[in-house]
């Protein structure tokens, strides 16, 4: 599988994402600069965490209007798998690929901790390889992770199984404890936690064992094969 990681000014989890992708897929991802207008031919795109464009205006708002994101929106519409972690999730909502918005955390503080999550839908192209495991731990590290959407959207997300991850012990005030959602077609995932920082047993800070994120990338690998 050939993957790509998008690099915006002040992306800061681009290397983390690349390390995880290489570890699971065995191939170095292409690093794609935000000013590119066309994605190279790839099987999977990661929009990494960070503070794209300094998070000025609103988190993800400026990045969502960059040349490369226009092409991502188009190709996601054609079924290209795309995942956005943390700032990447914010960018995906700002770009309209996912519904809702990420607001300032309820506690009005940045929060970084190993976070327990419930896999609500284990049958997506991002979660299949978890094979029935329903609880995982990934690190979280964000200031704007408080998911909001109107009632109709929430109902629709719930009904169609598009809530993929929920927080166990909600850290930021997200409605319905939502930590990650996917689009209707199931090929675009956005989530605040960082599975890409949970691929190494040595990295204790990522919580229990530290390898819970591997199966997420494996799921995509198996799905596009």
């Amino acid at each position, binding site marked *: 599988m050939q993957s790509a990681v998008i690099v915006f000014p002040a992306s800061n989890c681009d290397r983390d994402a690349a390390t*995880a992708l290489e570890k699971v897929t065995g191939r170095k991802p292409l690093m794609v600069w935000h000013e590119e207008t066309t994605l190279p031919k790839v099987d999977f795109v990661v929009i990494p965490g960070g503070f794209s464009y300094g*998070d000025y205006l609103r988190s993800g708002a400026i990045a969502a209007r960059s040349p490369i994101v226009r092409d991502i929106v188009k190709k996601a519409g054609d079924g290209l798998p795309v995942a956005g972690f943390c700032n990447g999730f914010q960018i995906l909502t700002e770009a309209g690929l996912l519904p809702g918005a990420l607001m300032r955390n309820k506690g009005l503080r940045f929060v970084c901790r190993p976070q327990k999550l419930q896999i609500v839908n284990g049958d997506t192209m991002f979660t299949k390889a978890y094979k029935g495991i329903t609880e995982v731990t990934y690190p979280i590290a964000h200031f704007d992770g408080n998911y909001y959407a109107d009632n109709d959207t929430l109902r629709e997300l719930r009904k169609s199984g598009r809530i993929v991850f929920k927080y166990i012990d909600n850290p930021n005030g997200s409605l319905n404890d939502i930590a990650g959602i996917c689009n209707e077609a199931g090929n675009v995932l956005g989530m605040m936690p960082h599975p890409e920082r949970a691929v190494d047993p040595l*990295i204790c800070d990522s919580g229990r064992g530290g390898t819970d994120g591997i199966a997420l990338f494996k799921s995509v690998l198996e799905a596009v094969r």
Partner: protein
Amino acid sequence: MKKVKITPEVVAEHGLSEKEYEIICDRLGRAPNITELGIFSVMWSEHCSYKSSRRHLKKMLTKGKRVIQGPGENAGVIDIDDGDAIIFKMESHNHPSYIEPFQGAATGVGGIMRDVFTMGARPIANLNALRFGEPSHPKTKSLVAGVVHGIGAYGNCVGVPTVGGETNFHRGYNDNILVNAMCVGHAKQDKVFYSAAKGVGNPIFYVGSKTGRDGIHGATMASAEFDDDSDAKRPTVQVGDPFTEKLLIEACMELMATDAIIAIQDMGAAGLTSSSIEMADKGGVGVKMNLDKVPQRETGMTPYEMMLSESQERMLMVLQPGKEHIAIEIFEKWDLDVAEVGITTDTGHLVLTHKSKTVCDIPIAPLGDDAPNLNRPYDPPKDLDVLYNDQIMDPVTRGTSYNAVVTTLITSPDIASKRWIWEQYDRSVMGDTVDSSNSGGDAAIVRIHGTNKAVAITTDCTPRYVTADAFEGGKQAVAETYRNLCSVGAEPIAITDCLNFGNPERKDVMGQFVRSIEGIDAACRALDYPVVSGNVSLYNETNGQAIPPTPAIGGVGLIKDLERFATLKGAKEGEHLVLLGKTDGWLGASLYAHLILGHAKSEAPLYAPPPVDLEAEKTAGTYVRRLIRDRRVSSVHDLSDGGLALAAIEMAFANGFGFELKGSADVPLYAWLFGEDQGRYLVSVEENSLNPVISTARTLNIPAQKVGTIGGSRLIATGGFDLSLQDTHMEYESWLPDYMAD
């Protein structure tokens, strides 16, 4: 622009003495103009010239087998094998953080990172040592909130993990908090960059943010006088932009991968002035700059303002002629300002032009050579009495229970969990944080990307001890970092020091300063653990009240193999607790004495702090590292504030098991549990390692004894306390959030 007349008042406003002014006139052969006066004034300030401290700092050990670059550059550089180098430094940002905690702390973090990446290192870890006033002081809470938010906002955005540090509260910092930021970076040894601007005729480039009127220190009054256009006095606290810093790091790293750079220096204190002069001075060249080319954020800036501005996120570089386009392309790609502002010359002078006029022409050598080097008089502090245990009553006799003692200590501001603080820092970005504040461990562990080795990093100082005995306290701060590095299995390599003291013009403060340095140096020499970088922050006082002397030490060590390291975690039920090191039950200047015996209420320190036996320190540290390497121990914790009892309790919190401790007959139970004798470690060992661990220690003359067993859900000291692990842990966790939520 009106010409400013240099009157004695203007000279005094610039902090220059009459004698210093005479030297300036003599070296120039004329009176300086206002720009020149401003340049001399900042270069000869305490901050840039180290005039009160230089002669004392010179005495310190700065060389060692792993030292590549000691003090004198932007940061220290050490060898961690395989062609890898670690570059690190700690620096204070105290005054700005008190005035404007968010921006003050944020720019402190930004500034120290620039010191590190200007030398070619990618920052891989930040730490911070914070001292606040007493919790009941009306400003403390907002200062804590602002400083923590500022540190997080900057470090999180730049994407460098903030992995550790320390926080104290004491009334001595009520009006003068301390914010000491440390940054650790990694470079290849053949890609370390220095600041010497060697060679004549080479282009000087300015990159990064534009120059504004922020941070023009103390000189705002003067600038209001000489610039009719300046409508308002600008705040002297700089404003940080971590977004620009992140771009600057990436652009510099990209340019550093080429061979275009001859020298590079960040613009820190005294901005364009100190960066250009330091580069020229080290390279033995002159500098000519055209100030019209300096990217400016505001209109109508004078040469004086441009030279003294402390706008953030700026660097000065000398490039190889003919390679300018490489730099321009890279910085433009990252949307940063880039401008050729000057050239290196053979005149030995700093020449500045502005609007086609020469506005400054001064010889560079006297700025360094003739800088004041004061021999301030000092009174060494007096030795205090030793507090003997037979002078103290058992807590129960005093009318309090051992349970209550533990609860008091565990919920005291210095000891209680700092989760509220470090959860606001991204600790896991960059994917190499093996251990951080998260586990409550002794030192943070950060892997060198793509390898199986790591650096261990810690910051330590016990102001309580330094106040009581500056020499022993200085020694202890170094020894504690050494111990913390050994506790995780790292070979201690070198330190950075951030020396925070009061007004050096006071003999008692100067005495604390000199004796602390002597103590630090004694420890460095005995432990073969040199100082490679640092910073001095004086005049930390308000209304004649100096802060407690606070020489914060940042220690860095190497873990060669990540298959063999230790943390607080890893102890298993049924294992034994072994105490290594000599226990006399020293309670003078201890947490117990301060909080339980009430010594904290005394204005002056009452009793001598525990002395550090540096030979024993080295022997014990070496042995602990060997135990970790041989996998003889499952977890390790050093003993510090609160002694054995608190070390065991912190270990229990990390592992989720209780313990039972059994005291010794030689020392009264309270002194055995809470004494703060130095050079000690608590380790957990499994049954079949117990005897070998103890007997080998004894052959090395390290006192060793089994002090308890691990298991259950209670924290027990036989004949002393008996507490629920869960409840005690909850109390430990709740002090700070409760305080901040009030």
